[in-house]
């Protein structure tokens, strides 16, 4: 039983990416690439990529991709998909990009039921610019723009966008939230991503997968403690699972 399997790098990844130690982005990137490989879509994929830590995805890939203006990936993806209906279009964005500055584009792409897949890495802050508060920052969470802890009475409450999609957009194909805290959750997340991509391949409509992802540097926690925070603090507010399953009867 001594056999150790060689770690296989997904075909679409050609360079190391610049994510911080303990960051969840790398795991999610790998899962997306594995899912594409398993769905035999390695030469049929375009990534419109958001601004923020998500941008680092672009630097490590060897495939068609475009760095979008901050928040506008939902619109760019719409333009791409409308003229390339048979090519997979997957936007890769953080919570600041997709929800704060980009909520109009994110919301309206879902509202129109564009046949695209949206992956949102939710680390409850603006990672790239130094950990400022975002729409997904938890109540009481200290960030560089909420140094006493987020006061939801003046900033609003953390947004749960996949739930909005599942509840309000009857045409949407798929909405789920996963996380990367342990192998079981990672496997589940990969299933969600594959489901979302399959929905798009089947022309079923809009699909979104949000990922609760650790940001140890900006949270001021060790990587292990950051994972623990997700389990203890985030999942109770941001439940993981499929909110709208593929193939469910459309209302």
């Amino acid at each position, binding site marked *: 039983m001594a056999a150790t399997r060689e770690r296989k790098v997904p075909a679409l990844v050609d360079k190391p990416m610049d994510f911080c130690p303990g960051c969840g982005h790398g795991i999610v990137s790998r899962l997306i690439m594995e899912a594409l490989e398993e769905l035999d879509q390695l030469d049929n994929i375009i990534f419109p990529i958001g601004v923020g830590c998500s941008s680092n995805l672009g630097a490590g890939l060897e495939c068609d991709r475009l760095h979008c203006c901050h928040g*506008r990936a939902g*619109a*760019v993806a719409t333009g791409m998909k409308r003229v390339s209906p048979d090519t997979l279009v997957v936007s890769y964005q953080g919570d600041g990009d997709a929800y704060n500055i980009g909520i109009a584009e994110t919301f309206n792409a879902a509202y129109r039921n564009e046949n695209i897949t949206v992956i949102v890495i939710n680390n409850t802050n603006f990672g790239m610019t130094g950990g400022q508060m975002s729409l997904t920052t938890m109540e009481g969470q200290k960030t560089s723009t909420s140094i006493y802890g987020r006061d939801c009475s003046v900033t609003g409450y953390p947004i749960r966008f996949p739930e909005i999609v599942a509840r309000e957009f009857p045409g949407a194909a798929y909405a789920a939230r996963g996380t990367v805290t342990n192998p079981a959750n990672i496997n589940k997340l990969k299933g969600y991503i594959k489901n979302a991509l399959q929905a798009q391949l089947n022309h079923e409509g809009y699909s979104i997968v949000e990922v609760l992802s650790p940001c140890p540097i900006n949270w001021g926690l060790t990587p292990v403690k950051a994972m623990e925070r997700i389990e203890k603090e985030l999942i109770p507010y941001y439940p993981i699972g499929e909110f709208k399953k593929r193939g469910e009867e459309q209302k």
Partner: protein
Amino acid sequence: MAEMMKGNEAIAEAAVRAGARFYAGYPITPSSEIMEYLSWRMAEVGGSFVQAESELAGINMVIGASACGVRALTASSGPGISLKQEGISTLCDEGLPAVVITQVRYGNGLGTLFTAQCDYNRETRGGGQGDYRCIVLCPSSVQEFVDLMLPAYELSEKYRIVVVMMGEGTLGQMMEPVTLPDFVETKRTPWALTGKYDYKKIGIFERDSRKEAVELREKYAAIKENEQRWFDEGVEDADYVFVAYGVPGRATLGAIRELRAEGEKVGLIRPITAWPFPEKAFAKINPACKGVITVEENATGQLVDDAALYIKKTHKDRNIPAYALTYVYNTPPIRSIKADYHRIKNGEVKEVY
């Protein structure tokens, strides 16, 4: 036979015939009929149309379609074009071609709906962040607008740059007899994203910015050298040369022809590219010319800056004055242009430069 057509509808049909197969935009007077027309027309020719949630989204959808190699279009006016500036800068940065139509209306902020030429500075200087310009075409009739749609796409693809069609409210709303061009066949551009990664130079991810800066300088120098377009008449022996584009440009043509018939030695340069500015036309101006006069639909005088710059550059030995005749709310009547010319000639109007 030429048919009476509304400007915006003729322009939209001309865009389709020039190969535009994607439109995204947001309604705004006086450009809305372009999107109304394309909302049904695109489907007929196998293209796509999206009524975007905002001008921001509209231009970013154009980015997506252009990145996938399709001739893409958006149209707007005043504040809508301001909202598109980040996207236009991005298109220029990524080397993505697109055509942006603006039917200019007067005013700051929300402004008014009246036809105008108040956005000359924004369009000709590259209105967004960074170090770029757009090629700016400024037709003076519906027919010229229609005839420039194909060259607009060809220029935008040749230089991988945004081409702004700078119209005016009047050009969108008026009707004139128009002969439409034939349809052209188009293919996806060779640098299109296809999902197969068969074109490797993509976005900011695989670029050498220092090398690119040199290429950028060379590209803009080539555009300035090769792409100046204008109409001129009577400039070689003129005492005064008018400079005007768009609808005021054609009104001024009427004015100089009447003035010539009355014995006045006047000429006209009507820029067809506002950028690159037609410097070569200025080199033809009579060395003994007494002044250049811009006719503009705005209050503060914008075109006059360029007219002054290029008359000083092409006639270095003499300090030829530059005057601005600025008119707000509608194209000036020909008789007003003529009366104001006589005021300049009589020394009643102070030069701007």
